[in-house]
């Protein structure tokens, strides 16, 4: 069974923000909400590294554990989704998430938090697949069209990989081997252990 995961290769990311743009365009994400963003460590210093960050669809998702109204569910492909009709916008998931993935649109004049919005791995939500209601609440459902997330497929340097964990880790392993043959080192993929644990295959 496919276990959908993201992997960001910090050696390749050039901080072009193509993934951010692809996500916003694909799902028509409103202003103020960034389901995906690029974080740069040691910006401007030689050796800086950039990483594309969004919901990693964790194996043991802390957002699911803390949600007081239990609006989260995990699909059989391992994608963590939520029902916006149940969400009360409390923000507990934002505090629990190690990646800062949950986003809250400012819907009112006084900055009232709206319902949580986050990366869906382009898998929509519990509304009927491909329906206008699903698009309005969660964005496009590319998985049901047999496609992978737009951010990963649009990545110009293929730094961001998305798909079945076994497949993308194999792609990354090939890269690491090629780099090692050239004498350059690569670290473990950033966030991988936090999201999917160490030494686990699920």
């Amino acid at each position, binding site marked *: 069974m496919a276990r959908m995961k993201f992997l960001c290769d910090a050696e390749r990311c050039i901080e072009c923000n193509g993934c951010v743009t692809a996500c916003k365009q694909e799902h028509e994400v409103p202003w103020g909400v960034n389901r995906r963003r690029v974080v740069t460590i040691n910006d401007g210093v030689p050796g800086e590294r950039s990483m594309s960050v969004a919901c990693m669809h964790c194996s043991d998702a802390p957002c699911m554990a803390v949600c007081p109204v239990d609006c989260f569910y995990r699909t059989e492909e391992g994608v963590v989704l939520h029902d916006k009709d149940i969400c009360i916008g409390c923000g507990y998931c934002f505090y629990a998430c190690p990646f800062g993935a949950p986003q809250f649109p400012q819907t009112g004049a006084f900055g009232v938090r709206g319902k949580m919005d986050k990366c869906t791995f382009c898998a929509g939500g519990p509304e009927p697949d491909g329906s206008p209601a699903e698009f309005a609440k969660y964005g496009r459902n590319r998985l*049901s069209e047999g496609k992978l997330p737009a951010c990963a497929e649009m990545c110009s340097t293929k730094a961001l990989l998305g798909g079945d964990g076994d497949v993308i880790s194999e792609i990354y392993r090939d890269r690491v081997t090629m780099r090692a043959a050239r004498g350059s080192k690569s670290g473990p993929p950033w966030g991988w252990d936090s999201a999917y644990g160490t030494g686990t295959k699920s």
Partner: protein
Amino acid sequence: MMTRLGSIAVAAALVLGLVACSERPQVAQYKQGTYQGKPDTPPYQNARFNGDKAAWDREIATRAQSQNEYKRTN
């Protein structure tokens, strides 16, 4: 007679007022730790894949390999 009708009207108003103060549970069937929302369908349960999970898996595997430029260019 008028006094009795008046007291009945006041009593009825008080009862209606108290009803307005009552509180209803807002989560209908709350069970700790279980998903409360609507059920979702798998991504292959649609007109395109017609429930064929193997076909969907093949499509996703093919798309995933397009991310591997070592295989694309060789």
